[in-house]
């Protein structure tokens, strides 16, 4: 496909038009990476040390402005020597039609220092090597683990091809058509678990295949008149996964509660990989100028998601599941409806008003059935009365609100607004949630060289009665469980369903002490308060402040700097309990966690444009130099404090931390009117500490076979020297 696109692109480029100016620029050079680093090239693909080719091209043909010609084309290629290359081609007849083609590759490197004993990476069946021994259901009993570990890197590649066409036809009519194909391949990770419950289950991280294709189509027709716009659009998205399932040989030895044959060497587990699905949507939209100052816009969309991939069996071991599936596939259908009406008006010279109504519905028409699962490919199939019923979640959101802005004297503006939101959910602990949102703000440039902004908002969410065991009862065969039974603690309030007050304040000040100076400061604060004093997320807070400055001493020199500090804090409360009633109500088993994530970022930037090198080129033009220097330092720190009641034991966790520093320098020397030479240097350093990864090997956890990779840490220097020629 890439070749096809490139060939098409060059064919377009080859078309010559009269009355045109053809120009372009080619950059060719070489780059050197001093140290191999998987994460430095996370999205660029620059992983291996050594030399790389620098190749960027940009060509275009445009009409001479007064020639009357309208045809043009453009070709742009970026990072052509890298795995993150991009090519864009556009050709058209301005005002009539245009065609765009683009192709982009994006690597995604996650880690390269993982280890796994599984053979068959990339396939759908993972097996253990000959000589594998597992005498018990523990990683410690994998006596031949070390000698059988193979390197595993998690790397993916996304290739994205787009074709867009636009045609203006008749008077005021426009057709847009686009096609996009995304191909994603590589390796991801999944966890394979074998066991009948949380106590006896054993898991292994597995290399999983990624072979995805998504085709997206958009087609729209728009009619534009003097006072109106009407349009219709179709959107289709079709996802295909080449791999349906992932099965793996159980690396753990026998566990007494498992069925015979579930452990190594005979035991296998099987996962369903992400199923094929599609979505199609029809949309009509329009805009009407009701009066010279009032416009109404309306969008209506109806769509359907479908998923009907054939089910895998209850268990990879057919003997564990004698009862057949209730259906061969899900026949999943979700109908979506969107309606959005907006009215914007200026009824008074100083007043701007916008009102809007939004309705969004996710009507899940997926059929419900009773499924009789096999727990983790290691238990017997559950009896019919213990079957599980799927819950096709549905959701309706509706919002109505307005915003106003009133211009006060002396370059001051007052903003205000209100919104009412309503959410209705199926199969949820809370059927209905209402939110009232009040907003206000002030902007002023009253003072010479100073502009100030203030925004504040208050949101209050009230929900209907929280019925904690509603999801549990909905998934069980009627009559099979006590109506008072519960799964989650009865005092839990899930944060996205709980009563909540949210307050936000933002301040912004910009000062221009002189024409060439800018100083800015901003502060933001927000707090989510979950009003019921129960279990779950109790409170979360953000405090953010920022300083920035810019100085332009001359037309050719720009200096800027910024500092940004964000702190997110949250606190949650919970109770550790077992099935026995005394623990459910035992406050001595309460625990709480306070987390604090702090981000600090600062940066400096210096731009020097067109510095005169003091001598002229052979063609008489100045041999000027452009310089850009950037430094960025970004740190984050995560602190997790745990407190537990007298019946429990707990200790604080080590801090999480990252630090990311980048220094980059780009110098472009003009050699002549058409030639430049560019030198670029980038130093990037990244350090991180993560207690979940550092010092944790594949067998560190008794019940889980991990990859054992460390948290990322690298240092890389990237130097390029390139020649740019303009045609």
């Amino acid at each position, binding site marked *: 496909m890439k070749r096809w696109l490139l060939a098409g692109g060059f064919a377009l480029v080859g078309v010559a038009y009269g009355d045109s100016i053809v120009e372009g620029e080619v950059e060719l050079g070489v780059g050197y990476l001093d140290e191999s680093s998987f994460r430095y090239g996370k999205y660029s693909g620059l992983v291996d040390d050594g030399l790389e080719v620098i190749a960027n091209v940009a060509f275009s043909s445009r009409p001479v402005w007064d020639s009357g010609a309208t045809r043009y084309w453009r070709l742009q290629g970026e990072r052509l020597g890298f795995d993150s290359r991009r090519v864009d081609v556009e050709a058209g007849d301005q005002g009539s039609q245009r065609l765009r083609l683009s192709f982009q590759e994006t690597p995604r490197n996650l880690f390269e220092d993982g280890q796994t004993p599984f053979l068959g990476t990339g396939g759908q069946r993972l097996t253990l090597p000959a000589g594998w021994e597992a005498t018990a259901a523990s990683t410690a009993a994998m006596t031949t683990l070390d000698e059988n570990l193979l390197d595993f890197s998690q790397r993916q590649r996304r290739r994205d091809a787009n074709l867009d066409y636009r045609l203006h036809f008749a008077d005021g009519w426009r057709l847009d058509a686009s096609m996009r194909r995304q191909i994603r391949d590589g390796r991801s990770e999944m966890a394979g678990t074998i066991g009948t419950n949380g106590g006896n289950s054993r*898991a292994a991280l597995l290399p999983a295949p990624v072979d995805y294709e998504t085709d*997206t189509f958009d087609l729209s027709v728009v009619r534009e008149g003097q006072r109106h716009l009407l349009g219709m659009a179709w959107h289709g*998205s079709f996802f295909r996964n080449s791999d349906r399932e992932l099965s793996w040989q159980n690396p753990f030895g026998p566990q007494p509660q498992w069925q015979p044959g579930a452990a190594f060497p005979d035991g296998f587990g099987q996962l*369903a990989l992400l199923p094929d699905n599609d979505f199609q949507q029809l949309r009509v939209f329009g805009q009407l100028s009701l009066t010279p100052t009032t416009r109404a816009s309306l969008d209506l969309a109806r769509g359907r*998601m479908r998923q009907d991939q054939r089910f895998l069996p209850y268990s990879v071991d057919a003997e564990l599941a004698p009862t057949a599936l209730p259906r061969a596939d*899900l026949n999943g259908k979700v109908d979506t409806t969107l309606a959005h009406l907006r009215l914007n008006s200026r009824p008074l010279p100083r007043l701007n008003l916008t009102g809007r109504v939004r309705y*969004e519905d996710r009507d899940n028409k997926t059929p419900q059935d009773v499924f009789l699962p096999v727990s983790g490919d290691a238990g017997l199939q559950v009896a019919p009365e213990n079957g599980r019923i799927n819950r096709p979640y549905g959701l309706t959101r509706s919002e109505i609100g307005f915003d106003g802005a009133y211009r006060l004297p002396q370059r001051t503006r007052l903003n205000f607004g209100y919104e009412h939101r309503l959410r209705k959910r199926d199969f949820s602990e809370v059927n209905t949630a209402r939110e009232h949102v009040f907003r206000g703000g002030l902007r002023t440039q009253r003072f010479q060289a100073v502009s100030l902004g203030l925004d504040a908002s208050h949101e209050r969410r009230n929900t209907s009665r929280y019925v904690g065991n509603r999801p549990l009862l909905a998934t069980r065969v009627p009559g099979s469980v006590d109506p008072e039974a519960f799964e*989650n603690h009865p005092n839990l309030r899930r944060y996205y369903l709980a009563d909540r007050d949210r307050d936000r304040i933002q301040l912004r000040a910009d000062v221009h002490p002189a024409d060439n100076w800018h100083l800015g400061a901003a502060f933001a604060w927000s707090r989510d308060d979950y009003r019921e004093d129960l279990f779950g997320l109790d409170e979360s807070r953000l405090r953010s402040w920022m300083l920035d400055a810019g100085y332009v001493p001359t037309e050719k020199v720009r200096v800027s700097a910024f500092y940004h500090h964000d702190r997110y804090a949250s606190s949650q409360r919970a*109770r550790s309990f077992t099935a026995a009633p005394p623990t459910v109500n035992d406050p001595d088993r309460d625990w709480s966690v306070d987390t604090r994530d702090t981000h600090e970022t600062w940066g400096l930037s210096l731009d020097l444009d067109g510095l005169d090198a003091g001598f002229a080129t052979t063609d008489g033009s100045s041999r000027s130099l452009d310089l850009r220097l950037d430094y960025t330092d970004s740190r984050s720190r995560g602190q997790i404090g745990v407190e537990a009641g007298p019946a429990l034991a707990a200790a604080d966790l080590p801090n999480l931390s990252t630090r990311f520093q980048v220094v980059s320098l780009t110098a472009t020397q003009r050699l002549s009117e058409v030639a430049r030479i560019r030198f670029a240097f980038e130093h990037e350093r990244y350090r991180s500490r993560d207690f979940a990864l550092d010092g944790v090997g594949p067998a560190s956890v008794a019940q889980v076979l991990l990859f054992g990779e460390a948290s990322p840490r690298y240092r890389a220097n990237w130097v390029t020297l390139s020649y740019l020629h303009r045609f």
Partner: protein
Amino acid sequence: MLRGSRARCAVAGLFACLVLLGMGNAWGYPDAAPEGAYLDHGVEGCLMCHGQGSQWPAHDILDTVHGVRGDGRTPFAEGQRACEACHGPSADHVMGRREDGGRPATAIGFTADEPASLKDRPCLDCHQADTGHHWQGSAHQFEEVACTDCHQLHTREDRVMVRLSQAEVCSDCHRRTRSEFLRPSTHPVRSGNMVCTDCHAPHGSMTPGELLRGTLNESCYDCHAEYRGPFLWEHAPVSEDCSSCHEPHGSSHRNLLSRRSPWMCQECHLAQFHPSTVESGLGVPPQGASRQVLGRDCLNCHTQVHGSNHPSGAGLIR
């Protein structure tokens, strides 16, 4: 859809007032049309002072899409008013003199002192269809961000239209987002593989956050269609709102998660035994090795966190 309460009635009333205010528009207040006399001398007259090498060069506009005379819609086409098509009547600017000897400004100078609605007017006269459908009432329009605050017309390359420089333009105002993209887990914007307009519609949309698709989740599915489902066993907040768990711009936690797991998971999952167990430093070496804390924590087993299509996958482990 909305029934009952006084609050809804109040909002509906306000909304009706808005409609009436707008529609009863014997007293509508559009921006006054720019006043003055047109020169209609074409572009040549302007280029005498604004040509190449001048103090205020503007000639590069002739090398852009706006300078194509053959396209009858452009300002420089036959029958159009060239520079005055956007800058308004400019006879005074060319012929007149102020008391201090300087020239009066053009009717629309695109200066910081002019209201955005005035500056946007010539743009929207032509671009109503392709960019203006959701413009009125959009976040940028409401904040009085003018077209020329982001777009540069007198240069060959409009930085906001160039993928590699677009994010710099956006971050001039969205400075917090710039910092978020420097966090350990982000979308590939800093590397240039993605740009802001891959997700956002800066000229407005029907979606909160000015997203390209109709809902937040539909926008995410543009690149992550594998998570769309529907699945046999769904994870309710996933099918409802990706941002229940993920930060779109940047996070210090893996996979753009808002908070650290397993505690984030335990904010909603507090069942008996391991889901409600207190996870602390006692589960980290050298004090211990908890399977709910190390490695992928909850995802060490519950790997199908976006939904499972396996008949035995109700616990999202299949």
